[in-house]
């Protein structure tokens, strides 16, 4: 629930843009801070602290974040009760279908979406592409998804997310991957699942993996935790914090393949804090109705009678894909480490 309160104060003057990996200037790497002094010099404010980054994710809990490709879809999502929207050029199902390199969206399209809605707007950047992230930060996006759904720009390095004041969400398949992303500065974690398939099986696999590893860690002695940190390639201090809290130290949503209210409630009952729905909404028959039903399912996930009511008569769900070696567009979850 509570996140570690990282509140860096008194940072040195910052460069105009955050530097990512590959920057060799030796600039201290921490969340940028802006100090404002009152007349007596006692009051200090901090912008872009880890506290406000992970805090926004906490405000999104129990909510549904929906993929949208234009302002009109964003308005439908907001009216249906989305707690945020993810702006992107093509939903994952279309990225699978059309192939080619998938990149950050046109900033003009993202700005139109920002202007159309009052809820937070997120957008995706390619794994490791810190300049796409600088661009999104400069246009005032609320959250960045460093996403395996886009074609990776760097196969070895993820973005150094501490260097930004805009917060990041990242995907994971297991506890080690989640903690590696948090150590790079992610303030919000989601399962990778298998985006654009309408098949929830991978999201379930990844959530169960994370939960089971947390349960294991939570009963370990300190010596065992050192060894386990080596096994799962996670920073020890984050693993220890996770074991103590018996949950990830940041908010954890499900993503990748959620297509129905029942899928969403399943992920909530498995212990996720909320869900991302990508292709599942705007690739279905009645997007507005399905979106609203999924929003209700996430709030009332423990109420099967209500789940039955909202699942009725939603029209056609998106066409699902089985996940095997012939999956069109390949296995996106394998991107990143």
């Amino acid at each position, binding site marked *: 629930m509570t996140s570690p309160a990282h509140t860096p104060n008194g940072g040195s003057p910052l460069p105009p843009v955050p530097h990512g990996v590959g920057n060799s200037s030796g600039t201290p790497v921490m969340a940028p801070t802006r100090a404002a002094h009152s007349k007596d010099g006692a009051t200090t404010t901090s912008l872009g602290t880890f506290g406000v980054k992970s805090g926004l994710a906490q405000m999104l809990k129990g909510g549904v974040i929906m993929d949208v490709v234009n302002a009109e879809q964003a308005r439908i999502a907001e009216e249906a009760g989305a707690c945020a929207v993810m702006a992107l050029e093509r939903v994952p199902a279309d990225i699978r279908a059309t192939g080619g390199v998938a990149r950050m969206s046109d900033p003009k399209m993202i700005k139109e979406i920002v202007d159309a809605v009052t809820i937070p707007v997120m957008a995706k950047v390619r794994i490791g592409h810190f300049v796409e992230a600088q661009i999104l930060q400069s246009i005032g*996006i609320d959250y960045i998804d460093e996403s395996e759904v886009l074609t990776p720009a760097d196969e070895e390095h993820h973005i150094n997310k501490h260097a930004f004041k805009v917060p990041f969400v990242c995907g994971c398949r297991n506890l080690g991957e989640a903690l590696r992303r948090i150590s790079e500065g992610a303030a919000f974690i989601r399962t990778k699942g298998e985006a654009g398939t309408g098949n929830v099986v991978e999201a379930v696999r990844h959530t169960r993996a994370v939960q089971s590893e947390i349960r294991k860690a939570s009963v370990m002695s300190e010596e065992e935790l050192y060894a386990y940190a080596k096994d799962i390639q996670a920073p020890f201090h984050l693993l220890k914090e996770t074991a103590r809290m018996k949950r990830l130290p940041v908010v954890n949503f499900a993503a990748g393949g959620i297509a129905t209210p029942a899928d969403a409630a399943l992920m909530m009952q498995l212990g996720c804090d909320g869900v991302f729905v990508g292709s599942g909404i705007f690739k279905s028959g009645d997007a507005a109705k399905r979106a609203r039903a999924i929003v209700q399912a996430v709030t009332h996930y423990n109420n099967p009678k209500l789940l039955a009511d909202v699942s009725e008569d939603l029209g056609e769900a998106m066409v699902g894909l089985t996940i095997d070696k012939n999956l069109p567009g390949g296995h996106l979850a394998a991107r990143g480490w």
Partner: protein
Amino acid sequence: MQPACPRQDVTVGILALQGAFAEHQVMFQKVSAKRKVVIVLVRTPEDLDKCDALVIPGGESTTIALLARLAGLLEPLAQFLKTKPVWGTCAGAILLSSAVENAKKGGQEVLGGVSVKIARNGWGSQVESFEVPLEVEGLRESNRAFHGIFIRAPVVMDLTQSLTEPPIQVISRISSSLLPASIGPLDEDDTDPRDPRTIVALRQGKHLLTTFHPELTKDNRFHEYFIVECVLPTLLS
């Protein structure tokens, strides 16, 4: 409304439709007051019936309002706050206000209850979210600053109480130098100490409104304040 006999417990509901309701629950568990605090997560009108007081948490105000309507809670909530204390944080403060600026297209529902006009996302996007120490009147150990966490926070634009309504009591302000540039100064030298936009915590009658997030800190003095100053007095009367 009044209990038949004096009770030992006080039941505080937390509106659990969307947002940071679990964080409030954790904070209340650490409050020590004269009466034991029992928490109910409110998702239906039946849940609300059990409560002596209610917290509306941070989250997305448009999402919470829609879910409240779909759950048949809007009317029961409006009735509830006529007689019982309610505390709104951030999105909850927006829902508790009587008018909203920067509402979503087509407008959005609010409950009323506190006579203020409030602007959503007053500071702009997430990159403008910030933390700042606050001086708060009436908190335990009030000489110790309270850590204010402002996330896409709303701004109080105007106090609109009429003579027949309970007076508004300001309990915390920020420096006017921290106000968002987009709103601009109220007067030329921007030093009016009564500028409503510097208000970040206020009370009207039994209700409490904060534009920041006490539930994201480890400091439960605000939760204690709500129980001791807003809730317990209504149970004695």
